[in-house]
């Protein structure tokens, strides 16, 4: 190739790449996505299952949206301000927004939604515990007044946490039996059109959406395909274009991602930040000993679990907070894989080969394989582990009744330590009957105080300091054995552009998405 030709081709390449950049969103097109499992309902104010949020997050809207860094973005509120003392939050709503049935959306709907969700949405009720009153001075202004400053408050307005409910359809009715539940009406970019149970849910473009020029896509079909292998095949044969996180088995991901025109991303779960760990029973047996728990952390090869069981997706969890959670710090004691150190610690702890019962999470192959791997790691350093097989109800019961020594789990963290982290470590959350609270029975007055202070400290710098301290203490004490920050890869055709732009990914992603033709 002559010099001139090289220059020429270089120039062509430049031109091509500029052309690619210049290409903007295109209107039109139909997207086929998988929804797994089929949601029980799409009325987001009443039901908050994962699949409900994924479909209905494109029908309903919250006051705010959140970037992958969990910074608030405008949603139904175009601007907001917080008073000096951190107690008064004022939201200005976008003007001219209408519900899918044409009625205007106003501040009265916001007030109504708050009352509605306090009755129906357990997590919203908790999030609103610090709320003293909420008022609407005019049609497009809402003012929240808190009893005391509550730092995480700005993080509670996500569509799944605080969706806006139409007052004109629900006021004065029995919410649970209202016929409107079958034909959800929101303000979102897509309108509910049709639901063939067991087959598909069809959403169509909202032509009067309040963001001009959006959405670009005409229709979304959410297909219900119960078998994991069949979902992979549906993607391979071109029946569906979008496989949201968790809809195919991990070992299928590498094969699917090698297909032509296929893009894979782990982004879009930052708000939930699924964090996995082993519950360690802090009450009795060898796991009651801090040295023994530290030994466990050194004995488990988390890198290998990430590479082999999760096909390289995810991150090693360094402590109680996921790295996407506010006030996360990596300045904590480290537990790298070190069997020799684990053995030394076991000796110090005086472990004599007592048998430990381990419960895998009964969520399918991946979790079973992971438990087998951890059991092998533990046996390698001389810990006597017996695996107990359970089904989902059995697992729930054993964990909530504290009948275990080691148990796998993963929980969502909702962006702020006060919303999704503290609940697993403070002693006020020790109560039988729930598998999501302080199941391990860790009790430390210092930690209780730090989390209590952290929730209401003001401003943010004060919170940061408190949570850094809490993380350090927890990681030193190892109340539970943190495993991985999980990533659920979303697989799409590369021609579906701009789908994942926020911290909740596919759940509200179709607003900005477009299809390249």
């Amino acid at each position, binding site marked *: 190739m002559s010099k001139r030709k090289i220059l020429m081709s270089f120039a062509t390449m430049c031109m091509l790449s500029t052309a690619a950049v210049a290409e903007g969103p295109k209107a039109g097109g139909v997207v086929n996505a998988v929804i797994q499992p089929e949601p029980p309902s799409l009325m987001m104010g009443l039901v908050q299952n994962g699949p409900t949020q994924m479909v209905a997050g494109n029908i309903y809207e919250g006051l705010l949206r959140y970037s992958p860094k969990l910074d608030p973005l405008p949603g139904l509120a175009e601007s907001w301000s917080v008073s000096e003392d951190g107690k008064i939050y004022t939201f200005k709503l976008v003007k001219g927004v209408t519900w899918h049935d044409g009625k205007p959306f106003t501040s009265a709907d916001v007030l109504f939604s708050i009352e509605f969700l306090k009755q129906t949405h357990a997590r919203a009720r908790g999030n609103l515990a610090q709320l003293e009153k909420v008022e609407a001075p005019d049609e497009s202004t809402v003012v929240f007044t808190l009893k005391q400053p509550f730092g995480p408050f700005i993080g509670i307005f996500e569509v799944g946490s605080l969706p806006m409910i139409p007052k004109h359809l629900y006021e004065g009715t029995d919410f649970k039996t209202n016929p409107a539940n079958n034909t959800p009406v929101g303000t979102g970019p897509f309108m509910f059109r049709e639901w063939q149970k067991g087959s598909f849910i069809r959403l169509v473009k909202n032509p009067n959406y309040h963001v001009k020029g959006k959405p670009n896509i005409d229709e979304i079909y959410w297909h219900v395909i119960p078998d*994991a*292998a069949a979902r992979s095949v549906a993607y391979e044969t071109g029946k569906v274009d979008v496989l949201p996180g968790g809809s195919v*088995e991990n*070992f299928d991901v590498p*094969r699917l991602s090698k297909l032509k025109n296929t893009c894979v991303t782990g982004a879009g779960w930052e708000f939930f930040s699924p964090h996995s760990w082993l519950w360690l029973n802090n009450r009795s047996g060898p796991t009651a000993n801090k040295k023994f728990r530290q030994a466990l952390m050194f004995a488990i090869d988390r890198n*290998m679990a990430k590479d*082999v*069981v999760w096909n390289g997706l995810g991150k090693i969890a360094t402590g109680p907070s996921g790295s996407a959670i506010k006030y996360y710090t990596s300045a904590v004691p480290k537990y790298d894989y070190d069997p020799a150190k684990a053995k030394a610690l076991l000796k110090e702890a005086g472990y004599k080969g007592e048998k430990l019962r381990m419960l*895998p999470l009964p969520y399918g*192959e991946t979790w*079973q*394989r992971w438990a*087998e*791997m951890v*059991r*092998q790691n533990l*046996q*390698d350093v001389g810990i006597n582990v*017996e*695996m*107990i*097989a*359970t*089904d989902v109800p059995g697992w729930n019961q054993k964990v909530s009744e504290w009948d275990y020594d080691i148990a796998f789990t993963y929980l969502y963290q909702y962006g702020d330590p006060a919303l999704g982290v503290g609940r697993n470590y403070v002693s006020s959350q020790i109560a039988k009957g729930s598998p999501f609270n302080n199941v391990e029975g860790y009790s430390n007055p210092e930690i209780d105080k730090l989390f209590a202070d952290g929730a209401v400290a003001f401003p943010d710098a004060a919170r940061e300091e408190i949570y850094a301290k809490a993380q350090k203490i927890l990681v030193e004490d190892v109340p539970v054995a943190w495993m991985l920050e999980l990533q659920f890869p979303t697989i799409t055709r590369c021609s579906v552009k701009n789908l994942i732009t926020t911290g909740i990914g596919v759940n509200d992603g179709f607003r900005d998405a477009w299809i390249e033709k």
Partner: protein
Amino acid sequence: MLLRNPGSMIGITILIVAVAVALFGPLLFPTSPWRMVQRPFLPPFTLAGFPLGTDALGRDVMAGIIYGARVSLLVGLISTLASLAVGIPLGAVAGYFGGKIDDALMRFTEFFQTVPSFALAIVLVAIMQPSIVSIVAAIAIVSWPPVARLVRGEVLSLRTREYVQAAVVTGQTNWWIIWREILPNALSPVIVLASLMVATAILLESSLSFLGLGDPNLMSWGYMVGAGRTVIRQAWWITVFPGIAILVSVLALNLIGEGLNDALNPRLAKGGR
């Protein structure tokens, strides 16, 4: 007679190999079959140390099959012995005493026979929590009724023989008569049935493990097939080799059963051909 039958010779050879593998294999493969020894999804016949490749976690498939032989044979043998221990006395008592006792025992047996045996085994294991003990118990519970029926039929016909009546006349106790006079003569069909029951038990255990109801702490062939099933498109060998192991051992036991049948009922065998 048994050794002259080529089919049963093949069966016996395979079984001897399987038993030898179960007994001595772990000496050749001292590391646990759960240990991750190589990269995951290593294809078979690529590395000398791992002739059958590795599974999804990098565990040696060969080691799994060897340790699995132990579990499968052990479960087959013990659960068969257990069901014989229940079925033979029950059938003998029913057949010997007849009348109301027979009615009661046979209705009880039929109660178990009316429930599909695999469904019952699943329910039992699920209730008792999967472990080697609960699996053996479940297999024994679902497989004793045919033994009881068979023994009852044999005893029923032997009961009327003259040598049995002679024993009654000489004043021997009922139990002595059942034990010394009747059972030894009723045993040959039971032996044939038992050899087939071992095969069925191995299949049952494999099916339970395949469904995830195996003992999670023991490597078995059914577990390997079940765990490999989902990755069959990427790695066929994880499912195929343990599948062949199940096939071959069940086939061997069936051949032996066939041979035993011919040997123990020579007239039947000749008449059949």
